[in-house]
């Protein structure tokens, strides 16, 4: 792993114990300039992870706690009348930052959720008839509870598609949990975190990721996977071209983090569950299967050309 990234990963690993693979994926997602969705039951450290990533990358970050009465203006900002100079002044919302931590994003109404849509895709927001660019880099790290829990508005597919990766943390293993119980409170540790990356070096790393070579053979494999989801009967609908691009970018970032200048089929296979599981839904005979099972089945059935 490149040194700088290694430093970031180690710092996050010291806070979130026993989840190095997920942390690695999260970093890969940001290196591939994608937005990240962290999904799991409450209390496994989603918010802590998001916080730790933002701080370690040395980026300005804002946290928005999504609630059912959240309004778009609370996210984007609002114009307020200034009596001194007799005009309206725009007060930027929390979205004008490098990293937005959208906590419990599925607790807000679709109206508030959609306020993030344009920001995520176009890197700009439009309010009150005016379009304003967002600072670069711009990431959304969202956390959500499993959708079957009470008081949630599931994110629509169109919005899910905008997250490059979705990761699940899962319960820690016994050893990690013991360490957690023995150690200091994680919240206190968070305030002691130091940025491990200069803002410019993140941009540089992202450029290098883009230059990782994807050979025609690899692209054949990628397309074979995408085509399979479009043709096989056990998917409700196939993967979109945006998903295909996400697969390529994610695999590149993964290969880069493995110190390679080219993508291997294994890279694609590793990042694939995180990238496509939230974009697929089962159909027909497999409607009871979990999304992760679907991805495993896909990987099993498509031969590497």
């Amino acid at each position, binding site marked *: 792993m490149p040194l700088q990234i290694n430093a970031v990963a180690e710092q996050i690993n010291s806070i979130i114990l026993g989840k190095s693979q997920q942390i690695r994926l999260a970093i890969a997602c940001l290196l591939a300039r994608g937005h990240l969705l962290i999904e799991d039951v409450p209390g496994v450290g989603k918010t802590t992870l998001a916080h730790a990533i933002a701080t370690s990358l040395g980026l300005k970050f804002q946290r928005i706690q999504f609630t059912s009465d959240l309004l778009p203006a609370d996210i984007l900002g609002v114009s307020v009348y200034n009596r001194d100079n007799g005009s309206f002044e725009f007060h930027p919302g929390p979205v004008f930052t490098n990293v937005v931590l959208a906590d419990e994003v599925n607790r807000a109404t679709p109206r508030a959720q959609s306020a993030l849509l344009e920001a995520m895709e176009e890197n700009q927001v439009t309010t009150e008839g005016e379009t304003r660019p967002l600072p670069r880099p711009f990431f959304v790290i969202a956390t959500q509870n499993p959708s079957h829990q009470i008081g949630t508005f599931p994110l629509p597919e169109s919005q899910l598609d905008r997250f490059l990766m979705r990761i699940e943390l899962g319960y820690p293993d016994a050893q990690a949990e013991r360490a957690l119980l023995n150690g200091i409170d994680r919240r206190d540790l968070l305030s002691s975190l130091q940025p491990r990356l200069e803002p410019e070096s993140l941009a540089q790393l992202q450029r290098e990721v883009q230059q990782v070579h994807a050979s025609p053979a690899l692209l054949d494999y990628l397309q074979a996977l995408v085509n399979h989801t479009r043709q096989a009967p056990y998917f409700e609908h196939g993967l979109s071209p945006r998903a295909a691009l996400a697969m390529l970018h994610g695999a590149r970032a993964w290969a880069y983090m493995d110190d390679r200048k080219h*993508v291997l089929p294994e890279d694609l296979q590793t990042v694939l569950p995180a990238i496509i599981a939230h974009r697929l839904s089962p159909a027909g005979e497999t409607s009871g299967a979990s999304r992760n099972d679907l991805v495993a089945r896909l990987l099993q059935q498509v*031969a590497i050309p």
Partner: protein
Amino acid sequence: MVSLPTTLNTRIIGSREILWLGAGFLFASLPHLLRMPIWISVLAVGIAGWRLLQLRMHSKPAAKWLMVLIALAASAGILLQYRTLFGRDAGVSLLVIMLALKLLETRTQRDGMLLGFLGCFLLVTNFLHSQTIPTAAYMLGCAWLLIASLIGMQYTGAWPGWRTTVRRAGVMILQGVPLMLVLFLLFPRIQGPLWGLPQDAYAGLSGLSDTMSPGSLNNLILSDAVAFRASFTGGIPEPKDLYWRGPVLWDYDGKTWTAPRIVQSVNELPDHSPQIEYTVTLEPHNKRWLFALEFPGRRPPSSIATRDMQLLSFTPVRSRMRYDMVSSIGTAYGADDDRSLLERNLRLPPDTNPRTNEFAQELRKKFPNDRNLVADVLTRFRNENFVYTLSPPLLGEQPVDEFLFETRRGFCEHYASAFTVLMRAAGIPARVVTGYLGGEVNPVGEYILVRQADAHAWVEIWLENTGWVRIDPTAAVSPARVERGIASALPRTDVLPMFVRGDFALLQRMRLTLDSVTYTWNQWVLGYTPDRQRRFLSYIGFSESTWQTLAFVLMFCAGIAVLIGAAFALRDLRGVREDAVKKIYGRFCRKLERRGLRRDAAEGPRVFAQRAGQQHPELASAVAEITALYIALRYGGESGAERLQVFKNRVRAFTT
């Protein structure tokens, strides 16, 4: 709920498709529209225009009963016009009207496709009228348009734009070319047109006839139409020898010369030398004469030769015909003709042309020798004030008297007629021969082009011990007609068809080149007869070509064409060809398989290498090395024969 799929029957096509189809229909029927009676053309265009108006106004479809009514009324009108619903003209008119009504009715894709295919059928009927290169080019353009509109109809989603559909149509036409060539060359040919053309197809053909009355040749001389073309094996003979013999007219009723109905045929034509060899490509003229230089020495296939040296085809010439000929120039024939035959060539209607009779008797007294008499008459024609013109004054009841002694203005038919009458009155057997004189030498194609304008009439007389010899009284009056063609023989004021005039050098040159191309087209495309096909087949090695052989060769070639197409399609399906790197890695995997290490199809090379290394630590380093080479070549973007060779060698050396 089950949603019905949209099918050809239910999918409504939009205004763009209708416009394309309408344009295709109009262009395909345009040549017909210009030929048909005006009311049919107006009706067809009107119906098509109505459909376009419907598009514009988004109005409802025309009522079914109204369309049926129009169809019935139009059929009745066509029946009245042509007295039949069959035959070329009536049939095409009916087809055009019905297609226009189909366009009016077209709503769904199925209608549209039907209209497109019927449009192609309509297009083919143009060949019933004309088979020239411009016609073929125009029809190719129309077919292109129709195919493009058919292609445009297939897009259920976004239309890719006219450039794409037109290009696709062009590609499809090009793809069809090899098959077309195979079918053209190998499909068993039938003599003449494929289907029997109705009688009215030949109505417009012009040419010489078996009678000659004042003014009949005159009309021909104003015609640009091509009579025939001839290419010579040796050089082209001099213009004064180019007498193309046609109908021979024996009988005279005081006004009109007529060919005898029955003439004895001969089996053997006299064999003189030297001979001139040439090939004639005769345009259809709906009569039986086959033209040849005087005098023919061979009989073309399916024809007879008569005692008076005419060549007659068994059936009227209704399609372009090609025959090889030999002729010997400047000879005579028929020295042994018997008295009864000659008697007929002395007969004159009684009580006609008294002054001519009187004059003939005087001449006879003065010149007992036939040859001297003829020479004297020709001298008179030459020296006295006779004029060669295409617009002679009208002649009355005694035409020869009036012509010889009063008007003295006329062209070949007047001179030939007068001279023959004079000879018969003087007791010398004589008759009128019609045909063509000269022709235009095309230096581009090295052949002679003879037009109807080159029609000519001359005389032959019978001399004791010699037989029938040619005398051309016109040559005595206007030697230029014989030597340099009709254009130079006439006064400048006479009207001449444009193609015969020789004013502009560039135009002349272009015209000659164009005609040469047409000649080649006629020879090789339109004139590709069963005979030519046989020769072509024997050239490529099928000497005994029955239709079975033809069918075999045809199927063979078509099969090859299909296989080639299938091979290309398969290659496209496979997408990428297996490259060498992959093949070598496959070899490596098979070697490992023999050790019980089977690579899963979905297993990446690095993961597989790790697994192999764990299961067989003794192989680990070799496997890792080969895998690294493979990854570098296949995924690392590395290439080069050297690197590939190393990889190949390692895999070959790898033993389990």
